[in-house]
């Protein structure tokens, strides 16, 4: 599946920011919501925390059955450290998260989207219902913590998420964020 043309100029948000969320507890700004679902795959937002200089978005990806196998194998490629080769090899793909650049004040027309990179990535791949007599159902779990280095002035953040190659279409959800005021008092420093 090819991405729409609006992603042709898609830019990665780089990691050259200070991870202020590592040093403190942010204000809870948004709760759980579904971002994209497909057959046996789901992408959900667990929560959003606000800091003085940005937002921490916690995203969960889960898949079962063939979608779980595909999610796992789509990250493998010849010469990978594991040395595993799968024939036919799936095209490399990944869960995608994007925010319109206009949300960062980079473009007024909102045509350019910024792909979010994750700060932390915890994943596991195994099976559910395993027993000595049954291999169970393949299961894939992924927790992504994403940093968005801007606070939206109107408290709204359009977030696009999906994994089209595995059946989760790119879907835009506009997050209505709360608790963005008085962050200097709400954010608790650890250090």
């Amino acid at each position, binding site marked *: *599946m090819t991405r729409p043309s609006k992603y042709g100029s898609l830019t990665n948000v780089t990691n050259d920011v200070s991870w202020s969320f*590592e*040093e*403190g*507890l*942010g*204000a*809870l700004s948004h*709760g*759980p*919501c*579904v971002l994209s*679902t*497909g*057959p*046996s*795959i*789901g*992408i*959900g*937002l*667990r*929560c959003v*925390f606000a800091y003085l200089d940005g937002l921490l978005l*916690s995203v*969960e990806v*889960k*898949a*079962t*059955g*063939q*979608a779980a196998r*595909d999610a796992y194998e*789509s990250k493998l490629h010849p010469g990978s450290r594991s040395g595993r080769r799968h024939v036919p090899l*799936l*095209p490399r793909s990944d869960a995608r998260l994007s925010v319109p650049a206009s949300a960062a004040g980079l473009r007024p027309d909102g045509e350019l989207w910024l792909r979010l990179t994750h700060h*932390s*990535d*915890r994943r*596991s791949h195994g099976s*559910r*219902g*395993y*027993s000595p007599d049954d291999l169970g159902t393949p*299961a894939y779990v992924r*927790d992504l*913590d994403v940093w968005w280095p801007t606070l939206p002035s109107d408290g709204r953040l359009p977030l696009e998420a999906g994994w089209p*190659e*595995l*059946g989760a279409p790119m879907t835009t959800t506009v997050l209505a964020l709360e608790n963005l005021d008085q962050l200097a008092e709400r954010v*608790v420093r*650890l*250090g």
Partner: protein
Amino acid sequence: MTTEPLRPGERPWRPWQIEDSDQTWRRLGAIAHGPVLLARVPGVAIGLRCLFAHPDRLTAWLVARADAAFIPPVLPPRSEAEAAVQADLHEHWPGQLNDPLVHATVDFMPQRLSLVERNDSVGHGDGVLRLSCAARIFGLPTSDTLRLEVSWGPALPPTFTTLQLPNLRRTAASAVPFLHDGPASSVS
């Protein structure tokens, strides 16, 4: 492994091997409590980013920060007996020997939390350990309160925090499903 949720009073022997029930597996946790600083002493701090409620358990998203000088050193075992104890301990509680200790008390039953599902970052040149992990807590307290105990080596003695979780069962039941069965996806 078992797919049955734990009954009140049951304590998992190897908690990281406990398989979530199907209803918990398919849902995003509902937020039962927001950020709380659990303990802070010079050089060490542990906080709760938030507490998620699932139909039959909780998830505590914990973060910790320690200056290198305050991280307890891991000393080599001084005897074969001590080595055997450490090996047994590691079999049931994998992870770093000098991890923080976190216990949650559900209905008067304390359970040590497994910090296996975690993301660590050490340093950036500033000699600081930063830990972030999602720790599972089995069962839902009927008292709508949860007591957390954290400690970390000699620097941080046991420190207790009691969270009030009003309407916890209603919150847990509101957890949003986001994974549905379907035919196997095809890849072009």
